[in-house]
């Protein structure tokens, strides 16, 4: 198992390096310098600024210097918010996004897994059709539509819940979390249903029944573990999806999170911010992919022992 973990960690390093390199050069070759939009800048000021952002150095030296900064955890200064570093901006936005993502993940796993298992216990009955139809709706109504619809229904017509902000009013976190989590709840419901159906048809479930175990013990003791492996393996990709989904949800609900900063930075052409945030988000996603892979492998004893101790 340790060898497996070590192997996967090592495998992540080139991924991160690719992300950093590609992002860095993409941003550098982007048309338009940081100051091109503004009025003519005094040459001395421009030179000073360029030195501050190391734009006076050759490209490759800029790159190695940036890698050095990264190793120290420094993402550099922002182009558009003079005097503020990218680290500060991320530190301001990320806790909000993380909280939103966490709630959405809870919605997705909580509703999704339970609905999927319930559906799988009585396939092709109403107990299966109803949750799966709801899941189909979840998949086909993307967050960019789900958000406005929820706002319209619960915020404007029913006036039950606030429709924007984050932590300003009680209950203003409910709609964003549901909006962001709904798609993934639907995917997880379908995955866990398929996983459970697959496992419930296995011979060892028949063995468990032949032992005289009550049905709930068969499900919780024997079926759940194998049935949930696909769901666990999906958590990594789901996390990546939640992060990019937060771009839309934070925009809709006007939440001051990292996703909204990112979109704003994109419009402002705040290249250092884009670069820093991309590297930051990519690292998070890679780490979460790693964790979900390791967890899924750990749940499977055959894989666990294959890589030896």
């Amino acid at each position: 198992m340790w060898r497996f973990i070590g192997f996967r960690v090592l495998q992540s390093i080139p991924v991160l390096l690719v992300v950093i390199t590609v992002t860095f050069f993409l941003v550098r070759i982007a048309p338009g310098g940081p100051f091109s939009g503004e009025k003519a800048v005094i040459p001395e000021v421009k030179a000073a600024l360029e030195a501050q952002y190391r734009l006076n150095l050759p490209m490759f030296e800029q790159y190695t210097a940036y890698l050095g900064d990264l190793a120290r955890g420094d993402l550099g200064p922002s182009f558009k918010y003079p005097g503020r570093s990218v680290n500060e901006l991320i530190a301001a936005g990320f806790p909000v996004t993380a909280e939103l993502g966490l709630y959405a993940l809870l919605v997705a796993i909580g509703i999704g897994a339970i609905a999927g298992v319930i559906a799988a216990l009585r396939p092709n009955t109403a107990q299966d059709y109803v949750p799966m139809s709801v899941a189909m709706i979840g998949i086909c109504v993307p967050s960019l539509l789900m958000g406005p619809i929820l706002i319209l229904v619960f915020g404007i017509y029913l006036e039950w819940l606030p429709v924007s902000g984050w932590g300003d009013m009680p209950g203003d976190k409910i709609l964003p979390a549901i909006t962001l989590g709904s798609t993934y709840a639907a995917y997880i419901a379908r995955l866990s249903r398929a996983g459970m159906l697959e496992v419930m048809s296995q011979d060892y479930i028949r063995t468990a029944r032949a032992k005289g175990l009550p049905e709930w013990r068969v499900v919780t003791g024997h079926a759940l573990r194998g049935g949930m492996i696909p769901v666990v393996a999906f958590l990594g990709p789901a996390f990546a999806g939640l992060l990019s989904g937060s771009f839309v949800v934070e925009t809709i609900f006007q939440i001051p999170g990292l996703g909204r900063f990112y979109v704003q930075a994109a419009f402002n052409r705040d290249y250092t911010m884009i670069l820093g945030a991309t590297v930051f988000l990519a690292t998070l996603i890679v780490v979460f992919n790693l964790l979900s892979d390791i967890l899924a492998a750990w749940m499977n004893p055959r894989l666990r022992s294959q890589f030896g101790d």
Partner: protein
Amino acid sequence: MNTSTITDISEAEQGTSLWRDAWLRLRRNRLAVFGLAVLLVFVIIAILTPWIAPYGYAQQQLAVGATPPSAAHWLGTDIFGRDLLTQIMYGGRVSLAVGFIATAVALVIGITWGAVAGYVGGKVDAVMMRLVDILYALPFMIFIVLLMVVFGRNMLLLFLAIGAVEWLTMARIMRSQVQTLRQQEFVEAAISLGLSPATIIRRHLVPNALGPIIVYTTLTIPSVMLLEAFLSFLGLGVQPPQTSWGLLISYGAETMEEYPWLLLYPGLALILTLFSLNFLGDGLRDALDVRSAKD
């Protein structure tokens, strides 16, 4: 049955091929048939839009402004007095085109990559699939946003970027198909008959690998369309004067309190298409009996 009197094969009763079998099963699935029908109608409308659209694409009536659905404007007008039905029809052209073209890009890259890796095997396969693994771990959504920011909102780039994300799954499916099939005894039988590799691929591998490919193609289109809608909604995808369903939804969301129909109808068009594709995909999966061949 007069079994022994047959002297020519044309006298024998035609059997039921797996394709026919699948088609019969698909036809019994009402949701899938519904999906197929809706999709065909939408595609035909999209093709014919320039001739059948009720109003001109850029035709504004600023004096009219936003009006709810009426006899003159079946789905109402937007704040510039443009006919919403016309907007949705032109937007559908873009959304569907992105869906189909980007999926086609993914299909071509993915199938070639996966088939080569699966058929050649060994070290080549290991290297090719490791690359896919690495690409899989990349946060592509963020990259596409980045690409759009850096290079501006370019339609061709959008197709390529989305296609480049979606081919990975396609490659994995194709490879696992080819690998499974290669070990099948009927392929060994074909080798021992002396058939050339090209004939084996054409007659024995491709027809049997087609099922999962069809299913995943059908399921890739909606995810591509979602990606486009996502980007356009953020203002990073299609941009005016062109329009798409994602863009229309984004405008509609801004004014939904006053003019809810501007959100409702483009949203319905998108949802209906996504439903149809997903129903059709699920139906095909059942009909062609494709197990989860995802990895």
